[in-house]
């Protein structure tokens, strides 16, 4: 099922951020594949690399109470404290074809971000060219993000996705042949 995550508040060709409300149960998990409409192509794909809640001293104050009234807890959960979701761009779709490279234009502010369906996740992870777009980001928890994404993609294929895990592992071994510690850490994370 396709769920609306929130709207773009900042964007560039390589990354963008989405704002959404606390109570949305559909805030997607770390490493999830998401999509947003774009100029110059059908849609842009990204992986969630960060979900953060803006600092709010008011909530902190309530959290510090011994037993805040139930009405206050309910109230705080409904206040519009923005959750910010950070997305790393990993590809785009143009005229039905999926490309694992940076899109020609970034998404526009206030465009709506959606989660991808299992079918879309399977289609997107049919090739592994996007690995490099993820692994090159040393300022992000890139390895964790890719591992989380690969686990979800394997699950989406049904039956544990063993074949998928093997071929993804082989591609990682090729890309990280000169960094065996890093390779080992990711492989451990995508084992069934």
């Amino acid at each position, binding site marked *: 099922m396709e769920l609306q995550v929130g709207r773009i508040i900042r964007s560039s060709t390589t990354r963008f951020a989405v704002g959404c409300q606390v109570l949305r149960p559909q805030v997607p998990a770390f490493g999830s594949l998401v999509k947003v409409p774009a100029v110059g192509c059908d849609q842009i794909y990204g992986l969630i690399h960060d979900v953060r809640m803006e600092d709010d001293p008011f909530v902190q104050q309530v959290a510090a109470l011994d037993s805040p*009234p139930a*009405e206050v807890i309910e109230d705080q959960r409904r206040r519009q404290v923005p959750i910010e979701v950070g997305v790393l761009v990993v590809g785009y779709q143009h005229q039905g074809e999926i490309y694992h490279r940076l899109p020609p234009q970034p998404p526009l502010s206030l465009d709506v971000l959606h989660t991808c369906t299992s079918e879309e996740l399977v289609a997107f992870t049919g090739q592994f060219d996007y690995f490099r777009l993820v692994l090159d980001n040393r300022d992000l928890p890139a390895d964790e993000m890719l591992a989380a994404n690969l686990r979800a993609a394997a699950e989406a294929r049904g039956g544990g996705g063993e074949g998928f895990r093997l071929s993804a592992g082989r591609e990682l071994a090729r890309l990280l042949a000169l960094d065996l510690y890093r390779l080992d850490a990711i492989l451990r994370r995508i084992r069934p």
Partner: protein
Amino acid sequence: MALELSKVTGQIEEMGRVLAQRAGRQQKKLPAVQELLRAFAHEQEELRRVAASEPGRQLRCASPGDEPLDARFPPPALAEQVTLIASDGSQIYPDRHGMAPYYAVNVGTVIFRHGSGQAPKVSSEPELVYAEDEVYPDGRLISSDLISAERDLAEMRALADLALTESPDGPPRVALGDGSLLIWIQRADIPEERQEAILDRYLGCLDRLRGANVPVAAFVSRPQSAEVVALLYLAHLEPEERHQVKRLSDTGFRGLTDRALFDFLEPGERSALFVRGTASNLDFQARGHGVAFFYLNTGTDLARVEVPEWTARQPAQLDLVHAAVYHQCSFNNGYPYVLTRADELAVILGDEREALENLIVQSLVRHGLRWPELSRKAQQKQVARWRRRR
């Protein structure tokens, strides 16, 4: 580069020294004034006469009720279910250097059902005012005093509207506002007929609340007034000396406040009731809404809670106000939770104002006006301040 801190360090040092000295002097006088409060504790009749006298009115002395002046009332038990209705407002004042002539008032409201476990019902009602007659009454740009009075009226109207839509058969209701219950309207910048009209409508809201028997309270955080101190000062003078006092600041009691006087209250306790001595209270008294007050130790602060006389006269309602306001403060750092939320709902932050003005500009352009712009002065300020805003 604007404020060169290196050039004020000497002044800051001196300021700290002077303020500490002043606080020390006031602290020394305090026991004597508190002693007067105890000495006059049961002289309510005499003190009411002092407050009503010419010098008493001149000094805006508070007038005591029937409770002993130094009384302390612990917080009454709060009913299991109480419905608190709160409102607060904010505004955008018109800017003659801005994009378009308009002003805005935004009122935030909260209905907090204590004991229900439910999330409060919150709302905000923005109003954009652009009609020529309203933005330029008398041909001049509307004053900020008049907009503030309109905002106060909108806050009270929201309280009355919401309180009256709550069922009288449900939990007891309390309407709570921020700041004084007295509307500050006798201002040079407000035309007299507008003063009268706003006051009349404001008191009309109180009429409705009284008709529905909903107690009303207004919460003043860190009150600065010295109406009880002034009363004690006058009372301790010989009657013939009282006429020579024009201002409390000319006397040895200068700088003392009621807040300091009542610092003996323990958390949750309220002081005795007094009637406000401000001249504007006469208009309220004339319509049966004379404003009374008590001081309340909110747990971390001493606040003034104002109530209309009809709430003050009903002990059950006064207890309800006392208990409900203290309970609200007890889990919100000494300030009512509902007022923090109402303020949060009402406040118009800088970037929201910017977004609003962008929409206004777009609308003006869509309707064929030339692209509106800031005055040259405002534009140049933005240019010069650009680096400092980053």
